[in-house]
């Protein structure tokens, strides 16, 4: 019977059916972070349960780490206890920690792929809803809570109900300065914040095939913002080439064997999906959120909707979003003054994201009155960006250039906006108060963020670069 790639990976990882009917799915790589892992370590210690496969488990310090140069545990005072508990729990259980000061420290979803821990057809778990970022390489990744994290540590499996399958076909070709971020925001706008709940999404189509791996990761990263259980792109030569030679990836004869297997990883032509959705990407322009959830999205030339025209069930939410965001129906967002710009997070902090932003910033300056930050997704990205001179481009323009971590995405490290500020951000959630009390967040691509920083107003990067700003 024809199978989807999701089914093939699931079946290959099915260890047993548990008495309660759940499938025990083996987790090939388990990546932890310090905001949640300490509680799981404590639970296991109380239960006197060992970690089953510390060799397949990695600890990252990312959520609470300060971004200031010369940072220590105490630079973000509330983070110190988390960092210490993470370090101790990992050491006690024999798990490698990518600690503060480690040259490869960074955001779990950025570090794991760049070090070659992520492999096509492998399963991953992270106690973080953006786990499926690594689906960009054809891995099947699940976000989980703290109890599930303890469960994986003790057993190396997850007890899951088999999700449904969904395919999103992205046809056409992206126009210049339109990115995977814009595509993902448009998909979420079309399907809604619960549109993929209970489903694993396979992203397919010509626009996906054309995307470099980092863009595919951005696409898969935002899968949770429409409630998806996981999301991935079937691996191809770009994925294999991207992984080759990375430190934790197979080498030599093992690489050849792995590659031969990876080439079989695709949905069968006749495989059926529970749901299908198609988006023609050719006409897409840069996208931006206007509201307080990631489905409230406009094209950059579009106008803020009138709640009266919004479907009844979403009307109250639209009204409340407009009030929070300080917007009025019918206005355009382009041209709106901003206070802060943030470039970073697991969504958009990889080297090509920073290169794209730097290309816009080069030769320009951050507008007066705007606080602009770039926080690389990993210490490796930071080093590579510095080697390419990108830090100089940003710094000379007046950007803060930080040490890597999650930073202003959720503000767990103290990086936050001030009340009432309008913040244009390359992150993944524009929820009320997420980037600071009463901060008004607009989600955009790195290029749109960069264009906004240098003009001081929400900008259409295409116009800026063509001289029509």
């Amino acid at each position, binding site marked *: 019977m024809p199978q989807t790639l999701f089914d093939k990976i699931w079946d290959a990882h099915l260890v047993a059916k548990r008495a309660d009917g759940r499938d025990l799915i083996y987790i090939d790589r388990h990546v932890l972070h310090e905001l*949640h892992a300490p509680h799981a370590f404590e639970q296991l210690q109380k239960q006197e349960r060992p970690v089953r496969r510390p*060799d397949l488990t990695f600890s990252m310090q990312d959520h609470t780490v300060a971004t200031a140069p010369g940072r220590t545990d105490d630079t973000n005072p509330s983070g110190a206890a988390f960092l210490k508990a993470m370090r101790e729990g990992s050491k006690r259980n024999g798990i490698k920690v990518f600690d503060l000061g480690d040259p490869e420290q960074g955001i779990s979803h950025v570090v794991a792929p760049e070090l070659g821990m992520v492999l096509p057809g492998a399963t991953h778990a992270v106690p973080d*809803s953006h786990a499926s970022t690594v689906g960009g390489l054809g891995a099947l990744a699940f976000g989980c*809570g703290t109890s599930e994290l303890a469960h994986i540590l003790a057993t*190396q499996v997850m007890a899951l109900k088999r999700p449904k399958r969904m395919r999103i076909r992205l046809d056409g070709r992206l126009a210049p300065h339109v990115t995977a971020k814009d595509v993902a925001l448009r998909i979420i706008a079309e399907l809604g914040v619960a549109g993929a709940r209970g489903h694993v999404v396979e992203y397919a189509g010509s626009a996906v095939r054309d995307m470099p791996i980092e863009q595919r990761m951005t696409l898969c990263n935002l899968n949770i913002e429409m409630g998806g259980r996981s999301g991935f792109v079937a691996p191809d030569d770009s994925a294999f080439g991207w992984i080759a030679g990375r430190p934790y990836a197979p080498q030599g004869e093992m690489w050849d064997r792995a590659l031969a297997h990876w080439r079989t990883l695709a949905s069968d032509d006749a495989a059926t999906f529970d749901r299908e959705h198609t988006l023609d990407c050719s006409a897409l322009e840069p996208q931006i959120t206007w509201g307080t959830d990631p489905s409230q999205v406009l094209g950059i030339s579009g106008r803020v909707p009138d709640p009266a025209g919004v479907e009844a069930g979403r009307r109250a939410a639209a009204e409340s979003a407009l009030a929070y965001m300080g917007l009025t129906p019918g206005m355009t967002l382009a041209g709106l003054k901003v206070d802060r710009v943030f470039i970073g997070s697991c969504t958009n902090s990889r080297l090509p994201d920073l290169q794209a932003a730097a290309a816009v910033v080069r030769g320009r300056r951050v507008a007066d009155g705007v606080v602009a930050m770039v926080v690389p997704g990993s210490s490796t990205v930071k080093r590579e960006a510095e080697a390419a001179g990108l830090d100089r481009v940003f710094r000379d323009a007046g950007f803060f250039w930080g040490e890597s971590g999650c930073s202003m995405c959720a503000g767990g490290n103290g990086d936050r906006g001030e009340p009432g500020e309008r913040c244009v951000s390359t992150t993944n959630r524009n929820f009320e108060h997420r980037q600071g009390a009463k901060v008004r967040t607009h989600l955009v691509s790195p290029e749109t963020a960069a264009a906004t920083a240098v003009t001081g107003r929400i900008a259409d990067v295409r116009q800026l670069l063509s001289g029509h700003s």
Partner: protein
Amino acid sequence: MQPFTRHTGIAVPLLKDDINTDQIAPVLAMRALKPDYKALLFMRTRSEEPDFVLNQPQFREPGILVAGQNFGAGSSREAAVWGMLANNIRVIVARSFADIYRENCLQNGLLPVVLAPPDAEAFEARVLAANGAAPFTVDLVTQRISGPGGPDIAFELPAADRMRLHEGLDDIGLTLKHRDEIVSWEQRMASAQPWLQTAADNRT
């Protein structure tokens, strides 16, 4: 995990869709390793909106939360469940739940109930009418909700989830009964796809 058979308490109407875990458990309230989970629940909303439902005197001792679609969207943080339990909320009746949040509920003995749409509408109306004056009882064994304003309402939870909540089963213990199968999967994979069973740094 505390077994769940029956829970009686004041039902609190929070009839909005897409309530996310940033609202339920704000990051700012999670700055300590062991925060005050009782205070953490909807901390910002409670402090900024005097009229917020949990601030109203009749809902100060909640037992059941009644919400809209996609409850618990967003971050996977389990504090958004622990905060409920610390406030003695052991049942959430929602139009639907976000996947990870529902899993976190089951892990902690917090009963996630979804009613058939006509029943949900009727139940929400009764909760609004009761306005905290009388409690509702949710019985997991009979799968019924009883309380003021009408007849019992039936709900369904998959048998497996019901058993797990009812017996307060240790999830890890349940899985470790399959230890032999885990070992044999690892052995099989070590020869079929050996790259999955090793994650060594090639440089060392």
